[in-house]
């Protein structure tokens, strides 16, 4: 089966079931609006949704860059310094025992309703998977390559840059792919707790006004945004791995 046909089927079957559920089940539109109604809401509110999507996308991209950057730096620091491993690693594990979601109200309290509390949420949520997967990759360089490099007279810095980092790129890529899906979760949680804009904020607003069709339309846009981001990061990762593999 061709790729396009598969996508169409994967979309068409659930949509048909959804419409059938609404039509045959007699559900009122404020409980479950049908797909046609959701698409209508999407079209008539396109300006509003686009504006809020822009805010969420900004938060997600900023969070992704900052979180991935911090994660990469942490992984390198841990890989080159046994002292850092000794001190920082247990602390890293302990921070993971805190549910990041529980921090959202505190971040909003400290940073207000603007985009920064959401960016920090996204950073917190993706930092660990990126740092952890890249660090694992850096520590699993095939020992023979390191032996070879040492007999060739490589300094530790050149071993890191020329051998360990390129060898760990596939691990970093899997961390980044996870991060692309997690980052929107962080941003939306932040928006739910307190925001003046963004898709999460718009969903709450629509829910409060019983505009369930708008809520579904927003959710649809959020899902599409996440999918696109996942594809874009996946594409970038594939290019990166192809360069090093």
């Amino acid at each position: 089966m061709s790729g396009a046909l598969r996508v169409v089927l994967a979309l068409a079957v659930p949509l048909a079931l959804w419409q059938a559920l609404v039509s045959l089940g007699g559900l009122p539109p404020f409980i479950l609006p049908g797909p046609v109604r959701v698409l209508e809401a999407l079209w008539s509110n396109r300006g509003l949704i686009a504006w809020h999507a822009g805010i969420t996308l900004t938060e997600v991209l900023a969070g992704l860059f900052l979180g991935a950057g911090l994660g990469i730096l942490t992984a390198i620091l841990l890989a080159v310094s046994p002292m850092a491993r000794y001190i920082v690693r247990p602390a890293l594990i302990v921070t993971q025992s805190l549910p990041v979601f529980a921090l959202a109200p505190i971040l909003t309290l400290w940073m207000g309703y603007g985009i920064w509390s959401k960016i920090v949420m996204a950073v917190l949520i993706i930092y660990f998977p990126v740092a952890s997967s890249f660090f694992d990759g850096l520590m699993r360089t095939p020992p023979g390559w390191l032996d070879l490099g040492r007999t060739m007279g490589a300094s530790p810095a050149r071993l890191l840059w020329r051998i360990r980092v390129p060898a760990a790129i596939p691990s970093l890529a899997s961390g980044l792919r996870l991060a692309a899906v997690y980052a929107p979760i962080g941003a939306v949680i932040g928006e739910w707790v307190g925001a003046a804009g963004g898709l999460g904020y718009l969903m709450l607003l629509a829910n409060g006004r019983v505009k369930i069709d708008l809520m579904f339309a927003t959710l649809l846009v959020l899902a599409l945004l996440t999918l696109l981001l996942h594809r874009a990061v996946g594409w970038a990762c594939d290019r990166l791995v192809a360069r090093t593999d």
Partner: protein
Amino acid sequence: MTPAPSICLTGTAHFGAHQLFPPVQLEIDAGTWSCLLGPSGCGKTTILRLIAGLETGVDFQGQIRAGDGQPIPGRVAYMAQTDLLLPWLDVLGNVTLGARLRGAPADTAAAKDLIARLGLGPHVHKRPSQLSGGQRQRVALARTLMEDRPVVLLDEPFSALDARRRADMQELAAETLTGRTVLLVTHDPGEAARLGDRVFLMDERGMVEAVPPAVSAIRGADDPDTLAFQGRLLAALRAQSAA
């Protein structure tokens, strides 16, 4: 290349409370091939790594000296059982890896000459994944030669190749490494019989030297004296394991 030194290792190694090998003396003559033959786990790779200055995880008591009194690390090229080619570099990149790792400009023209000399000319911009096992090991040999070190340490570099490619590689290595001090660690009596100017047999009880045929290495694979020597080495290995 600076003149190839002789190397002498004397000493014993422990792994915790366990003795890896008893006091041994290994004399590697300058500019010739010495083979260290023994079963897996007898410590022969450890000896090679000790000479290379690599991490061994054992407690070595003894000394490793070059005949000219200069330090050995920095004068060693190393070739392992696997080709250790970096998959993200092409053949040229792998052959010039050493310069890259030292932050020195790579002599691309010399590398290309060397690659062509080893019959890899058409593959110069291919990645290792596009090469056969024999071609990959030839790239590893080119990388070793590019280092142009007077001492070459070979840790069973041909053991993963089929019989024909192994014989080809042995001849190519013998020809291209002429004049260098070579230590070849192997578990193959045939390989030691063909390549060794001196042959040392090792097991957990220690090391003895076997006297090779008068004809100099590399010896013909079908030479009767070499075959007889191979037979004696095999018998000695089996006697060791039976004891």
